[in-house]
């Protein structure tokens, strides 16, 4: 119950191990300032574009910065630096420079802050060449992915669901055994099962694990795969993790068009990992996030909808096993 959040140790361990690591933050973290000094814990004004550019300048000159951007929604203010600068300088310079910087911020979930604060744009970010997009689905995987990010030689964005920090975060289903470093581009098997595979990312990992518990009560044994990173996307790894000859349900909060799940679906079908009739997607609606919880609920996949999709999309398959 009083378990410390694993992110704290991940950040402190990195700051201790890497004297060249600085943090840019718009919110003061007094304990970290006291421990690592104001020179490294740089307090910044609300100026995301300049923050990302400065982090790039430091990265190009041999340092590393963890940019705590508060909310991923604010990353759009810094999109020039992210898309045109941070992720291109290595390539444009013919490989003369590398850009080890990390951006972390709250994405979406449980806060009901509305259309300008609630974003989980991993599909969009995953299309930027050279960028790692980490989308942790549990507190331990957040710590594990951040640990890798802080030693990674290329730019990384970590989209952190506020649900991973909510008062009841310790009650979230936890597929990772420990907060140890997790590799990028390697999906994890969050739950074993033999009847169907559900592929999840970010907030849908917990939802799928809870749905799998519900399905188990109805005699359906569901496997859950956690993508962990939207880029690199572990297409081959997922193809190897689906249950042969059984259905696959891809579950995503983002809308369908151009999403990592449509990309993955094509790969699974093209490689023959799943037959076209046995794959389905359950995704979010292409609608800005309304503040009202009543209006938001129907736009996102939740446990009820996942259970329903699992049972109905593949009714013939599941009926065959569970007459």
């Amino acid at each position, binding site marked *: 119950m009083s378990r410390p959040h694993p992110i704290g140790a991940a950040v402190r361990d990195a700051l201790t191990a890497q004297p060249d690591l*600085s943090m840019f933050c718009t919110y003061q973290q007094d304990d970290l300032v006291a421990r690592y000094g104001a*020179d*490294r814990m*740089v307090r*910044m*004004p609300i*100026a995301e*574009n*300049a*923050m*990302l*550019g*400065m*982090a*790039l*300048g*430091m*990265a*190009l*000159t*041999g*340092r590393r*910065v963890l940019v705590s951007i508060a909310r991923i929604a604010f990353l759009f203010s810094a999109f*020039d*630096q992210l898309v*045109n*600068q941070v992720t291109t*300088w*290595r*390539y*444009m*310079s*013919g*490989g*003369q*420079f*590398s850009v080890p910087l990390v951006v972390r911020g709250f994405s979406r979930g449980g806060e009901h802050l509305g259309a300008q604060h609630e974003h989980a744009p991993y599909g969009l970010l*995953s299309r930027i*060449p*050279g960028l*790692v997009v980490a989308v942790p689905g549990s507190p331990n995987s957040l710590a594990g992915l951040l640990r890798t990010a802080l030693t*990674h*030689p*290329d730019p990384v964005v970590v989209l952190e669901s506020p649900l991973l920090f909510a008062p009841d975060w310790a009650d979230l289903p936890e597929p990772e055994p420990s907060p140890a470093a997790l590799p*990028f*581009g390697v999906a994890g098997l969050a739950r074993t099962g033999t009847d169907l595979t559900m592929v999840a990312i970010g907030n849908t990992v917990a939802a799928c694990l809870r749905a799998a518990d519900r399905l188990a009560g109805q005699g359906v044994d569901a496997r859950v795969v956690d993508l962990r990173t939207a*880029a*690199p*996307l572990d*297409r081959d790894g997922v193809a190897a993790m689906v249950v042969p000859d059984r259905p696959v349900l891809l579950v995503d909060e983002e809308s369908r068009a151009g999403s990592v799940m449509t*990309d993955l679906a094509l*790969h699974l079908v093209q490689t023959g990992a799943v037959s076209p009739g046995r794959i389905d997607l359950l995704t979010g609606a292409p609608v800005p996030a309304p503040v009202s919880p009543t209006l938001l609920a129907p736009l996102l996949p939740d446990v009820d909808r996942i259970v329903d999709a699992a049972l109905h999309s593949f009714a013939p398959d599941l009926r065959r096993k569970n007459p």
Partner: protein
Amino acid sequence: MDLLSAYRAMLGIRLFEEGVLRLAEQGLVPGATHPYTGQEAVAVGVLAARRPQEWVVSFYRCHGHALAAGSPPERVLREILGRDGGLCGGKSGSMHLADRANRLLGSTSIVAAQLPIAAGAAMSAKLDGTGQAVIVFCGDGALGAGGAYETLTIAAAQRLPLLVVCEDNGWQDRTASALVRHLAPTELVRGLRLPYVEVDGNDVEAVHGAATAALAACRDGGGVGVLVAHTYLRHFHSQLGPRPPAEYRPAAERERWLARDPLTVAADRITADLTALRAEVAAETDALIRRALDAGEPDPATATTGVTVTGDALIGAAR
């Protein structure tokens, strides 16, 4: 600064840039080129004042900065032409030159985006505690961008050793700056209470003197400083494709500035006969252009290299 070597450096840039424009008119330059002709005294005067380990950050009008920073002219030209052996392997072209060996951190084609990047490098310099400054070049249009304001306020608050060199040529692409701003660059930075100095950007000795003092103040803990150099382009803002754009600036303004060419201003103060030197630089430039034109194309297999350190396995490319 030795005036004769400054003249030589400025002449080298001038002839290089005129060569690039000739090549562009022959359709040999992929993409756009932004000539530095007329502004040579700024790059040469400022960079003669930097310490060898100090980083330089530039923008799309970067050829002059790269050459004055010490980048090998032939490799710069090969890069501009997209040939094998270019400074950045054919991936930067004219607008994004970077040269780690000569401490050119890079150049960006997005107006003002270089300012925060340079401020980050200055933060590194401050943390390193080696007393180095960072020099960033920008046009006067850049000071109207949001990122400039953000950067200058942060750099001032953090007392970052950053020298912003504003090349005020009075034009933002084809728009006269006076039409789209209500404050001159000096008034803008005065409003931010930043130390600044204004200088005749066509007088290489004046530029050098001002830059030397401004850099000393930056390095000495004075934090961000601004050098506003008034200058003018001999040619257009940019050329895209083989046809040079028509002149768009008022004839009287153009005449007035072209009469004060930085090469003439410097040459008038040099007593030695410059005939031999001019012939020598012209021959060198012709030779490097010939060699660059003789170079082959880059290996197409390198198109996908250098996106990440970790390589294609982590790019997640669709196969």
